[in-house]
């Protein structure tokens, strides 16, 4: 049947079983929004306050559901406002299709109103991107974009559609998602056998060699990385850790890839890693990293990282092997399938002595009683105690993020939503909106710092309008805490532009947006506020007062040896 470009786009989204879109309309995308009205019964559009909010929401939706997220924006500033969210999704391998329209073909390249070279801007921060200049190619492009976003190592894909294409008509034929490989442009691409669309075949010899290495190891250590989460391989990973009887460190992105209460967990690894994790990695004789890219925040000094160990890397992305750290053995493949194969062949190991050594070091940091303010651990443990165990946690970036990851336990993929790679302040509220929309039955909380929260708190309007009962905890220490911590530790206490000694009053801000808010400075007040927030069933801000000089501990300086803990 003949359809307009904007309708073909909607039909293609339905082919992909998309039922939720986050976005913001504008001049060039008007035709698409015009058609959206007709599809309102099948596609739920969430209007955010800002395109950046939409980008983080689509990302949070993708991370928490495992499905591909979708965000819409108009051309020019609409598209550039998406970019921070696109880069955030790219660095953390989150599958999102971002769709923007551009000026019509008679205006392209003429510096027209709201025109920007969107695909050029998106190039280094997407897995792939497309500009659609011919309505006949629209359906194929959308199908291909979704296939790329979810295949192999997932990631964001950007589609730029010229405005005239959304108005022009073309023949459209419904093809179910499962059949896309057999039709049109995707068939041609599959036939060329491009590596990226397929899960790499796992080499059996590689598996056998690793099983042998584990058998020979007396002091094994595991790292659970973001690939375990994206690959939804948590059950397989837990089983593997138990069979190998190996202490397991978890990266920021790996939160939820291992059952957080499994006694083998040594806590976070790296710059703010626990002593047990960092010393374990330094002392082990075999280090198996699954879905982890040895970033500079984990393998702080790649030359001395796990120097006493044979390093084994399991990853779906071949380009990650030997990129940052030289490995002794690697397996390229999907975490779930690799771990399944390993679990079939691995016999139960016993490393009681080694575990005793590793767990003689703390897995969590204890803080002194906060007095008239809360301390980070009190704050996190009170929240954890009063919230359902499977609560989803979206964070912003900074000290509060590290504290949340250090002190909460995450048990399943998607439970922790955090910007690990790009470190995007202001990610949390949008991500929480995406998570709540995608998981209406789950309790969703947003952990923010006062600095991060100021950046994108405009999305409170979205929280209120769509009646999303998201509780925001502002870890309010009146400063950009992480930067202040560096200024104190590395810049000799020369505090420069990190004091947040200014408004707004977050409780009044909540009220201005039609939400409730409370300020708390001890555990009783906090507990009371949480109960009120849960009972209210609406969006809620709890402004939690912390001491300005509270630090994230332990800390190892960038580029330093992983056990060179600073005096904090």
């Amino acid at each position, binding site marked *: 049947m003949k359809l307009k470009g904007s309708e073909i786009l909607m039909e293609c989204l339905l082919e992909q079983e998309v039922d939720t879109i986050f976005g913001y309309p504008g001049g060039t995308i008007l035709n698409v929004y015009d058609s959206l009205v007709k599809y309102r019964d099948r596609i739920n559009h969430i209007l955010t306050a800002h395109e950046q909010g939409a980008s983080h929401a689509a990302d949070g939706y993708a991370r928490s559901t495992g499905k591909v997220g979708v965000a819409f924006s108009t051309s020019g500033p609409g598209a550039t406002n998406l970019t921070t969210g696109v880069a955030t999704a790219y660095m953390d391998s989150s599958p999102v299709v971002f769709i923007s329209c551009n000026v019509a073909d008679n205006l392209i390249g003429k510096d027209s109103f709201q025109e920007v070279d969107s*695909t*050029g801007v998106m*190039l*280094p921060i997407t*897995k*792939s*991107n497309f*500009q659609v200049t011919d309505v006949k190619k629209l359906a194929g492009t959308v199908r291909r974009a979704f296939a*790329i976003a979810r295949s192999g190592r997932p990631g964001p894909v950007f589609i730029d559609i010229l405005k005239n294409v959304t108005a022009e008509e073309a023949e459209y034929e419904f093809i179910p998602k499962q059949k896309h490989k057999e039709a049109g442009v995707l068939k041609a691409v599959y036939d*060329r056998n*491009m*590596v*990226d669309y397929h899960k790499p075949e796992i080499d059996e010899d590689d598996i056998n060699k690793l099983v042998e290495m584990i058998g020979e190891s007396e002091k094994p250590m595991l790292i659970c990385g973001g690939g375990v989460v994206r690959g939804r391989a948590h059950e397989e990973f837990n089983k593997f850790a138990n069979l190998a009887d190996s202490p397991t460190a978890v990266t920021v992105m790996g939160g939820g890839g291992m059952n957080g209460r499994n006694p083998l967990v040594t806590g976070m690894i790296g710059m703010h890693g626990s002593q047990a994790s960092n010393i374990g990695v330094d002392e082990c004789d075999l280090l198996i990293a699954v879905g982890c890219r040895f970033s500079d925040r984990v393998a702080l000094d790649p030359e001395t990282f796990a120097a006493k160990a044979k390093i084994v890397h399991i990853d779906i*992305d*071949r*380009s990650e*092997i*030997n*990129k940052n750290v*030289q490995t002794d053995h690697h397996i390229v493949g999907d975490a779930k399938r690799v771990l399944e194969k390993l679990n079939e062949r691995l016999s139960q190991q016993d490393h009681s002595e080694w575990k005793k050594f590793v767990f003689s070091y703390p897995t969590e940091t204890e803080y002194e009683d906060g007095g008239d303010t809360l301390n980070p651990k009190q704050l996190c443990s009170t929240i954890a105690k009063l919230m359902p165990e499977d609560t989803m946690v979206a964070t912003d970036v900074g000290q509060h993020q590290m504290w949340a990851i250090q002190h909460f336990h995450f048990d399943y993929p998607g439970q922790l939503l955090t910007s690990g790679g790009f470190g995007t302040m202001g990610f949390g509220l949008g991500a929480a909106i995406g998570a709540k929309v995608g998981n209406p039955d789950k309790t969703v909380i947003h952990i923010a710092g006062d600095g991060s929260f100021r950046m994108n708190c405009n999305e409170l309007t979205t929280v209120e309008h769509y009646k999303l009962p998201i509780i925001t905890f502002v870890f309010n220490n009146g400063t950009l805490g992480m930067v202040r911590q560096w200024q104190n530790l590395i810049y000799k206490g020369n505090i420069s532009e990190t004091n947040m000694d200014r408004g707004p009053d977050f409780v009044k801000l909540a009220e201005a947006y039609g939400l409730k808010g409370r300020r708390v400075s001890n555990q009783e007040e906090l507990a009371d506020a949480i109960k009120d927030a849960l009972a209210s069933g609406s969006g809620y801000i709890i402004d939690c007062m912390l001491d300005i000089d509270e630090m994230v501990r332990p800390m190892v300086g960038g580029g330093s040896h992983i056990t060179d803990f600073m005096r904090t």
Partner: protein
Amino acid sequence: MKGIFSVLVENKDGVLSAVSGLFARRGFNIDTLAVGETDKHDISSMTITSTGDQRTIDQIEKQLNKNVDVIKVRRLAESKSVCIEMILVKAAYNMSNRSSLIELCQIVGAKIMKVAPKYLLLEYHAEPEAVEGFIDLLRSYGIIEIQRTGTIAMEK
């Protein structure tokens, strides 16, 4: 070490900038880059030469493979492939050295495309090392302008 990559890519907008951007973003060198359509109009072929340590050259291959618009990457060994570069060059002459320049062209097999009052426009193609050698020899005459295609290569 030197890396020679023969890369088949989709012939679509932005692929060239994606590939060159990849090199820029990750701090890899591009020594030469030659691009052209293959016998199939929807597929282009690139020859890229680069220098770096073993790990860098390995990374280049993996990163190229990762790009979804790249269809196939082949790393060519210099000894097992034919590598050719072509140049157009205006070499200056005067009455005293004109015949030696013409003689030089005859010896290496460079074609004289145009004789101008003050220069010869030469076309020369050969293995990259021979091209470098020829350019060096021309320096003593004076090079007015030079255009190079960059290396193209194919496995034997």
